């Protein structure tokens, strides 16, 4: 059993609420825990926000492609753009004790997803692979 849902959406922040609604519904359909759904919704939103901010430098007219795959043992979300390729080393949240604006997105992603990985095979742009295993 493997279901997948793919969404292609403009890189405009107004569409982040569409992503959240989709993430929510998928979580509910697959009877995930409400707290987990909330954490995943935030994580996917943050990953897409990062694409808009960093990969597309605020250009709201590009495309973001999000692919959700649900298997019995894991939930995978792959987020693709064709913007500036990220330097893997830069992909780091700030020290949580150093209170200042920004630097929380990656923390929010990593706290719920077990895998956070940039696909090196992707030449132009980025393909971020997020996986959560069901224990």
């Amino acid at each position: 059993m493997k279901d997948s849902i793919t969404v292609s959406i403009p890189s405009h922040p107004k569409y982040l609420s569409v992503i959240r609604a989709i993430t929510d519904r998928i979580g509910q359909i697959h009877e995930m825990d409400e707290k987990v759904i909330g954490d995943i919704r935030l994580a996917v939103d943050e990953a897409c926000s990062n694409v808009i901010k960093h990969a597309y430098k605020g250009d709201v007219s590009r495309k973001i492609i999000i692919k959700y795959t649900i298997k019995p043992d894991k939930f995978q979300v792959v987020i693709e753009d064709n913007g500036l390729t990220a330097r893997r080393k830069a992909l780091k949240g700030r020290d949580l004790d150093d209170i200042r604006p920004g630097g929380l997105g990656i923390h929010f992603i990593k706290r719920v997803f077990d895998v956070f990985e940039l696909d090196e095979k992707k030449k132009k742009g980025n393909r971020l692979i997020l996986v959560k295993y069901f224990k």
Partner: protein
Amino acid sequence: MKIKSIDYKGKKIIAITGDIDMYSSPELRDEMMAHISKKATALYIDLESVTYIDSSGIATFVEGLKCMKLYGGKLQFCGIPNSILEIFRFSKLDRVFEIHSTVDDAINS
């Protein structure tokens, strides 16, 4: 997201409804900064009807806190739903934000 600035018992309250995200947080920032630029001594953020907050919303509040500290103003939070409180805790912001359960508690603190 919807924002309303309210005068309540002589205090400035910003009551927010709905989702605070990268799309809506600039409007929240404008509203908050309008009060801060007038050197509001205390500003109460009512989150009771907030259904979602992401890192851009949190960054907005951290910025407000830092700006108010510069002149000794106080940023206070009230009515925080549990799911949002949990995010504040994870981000270690429960230590720097003044959090109260109701607007009245915040005002009387």
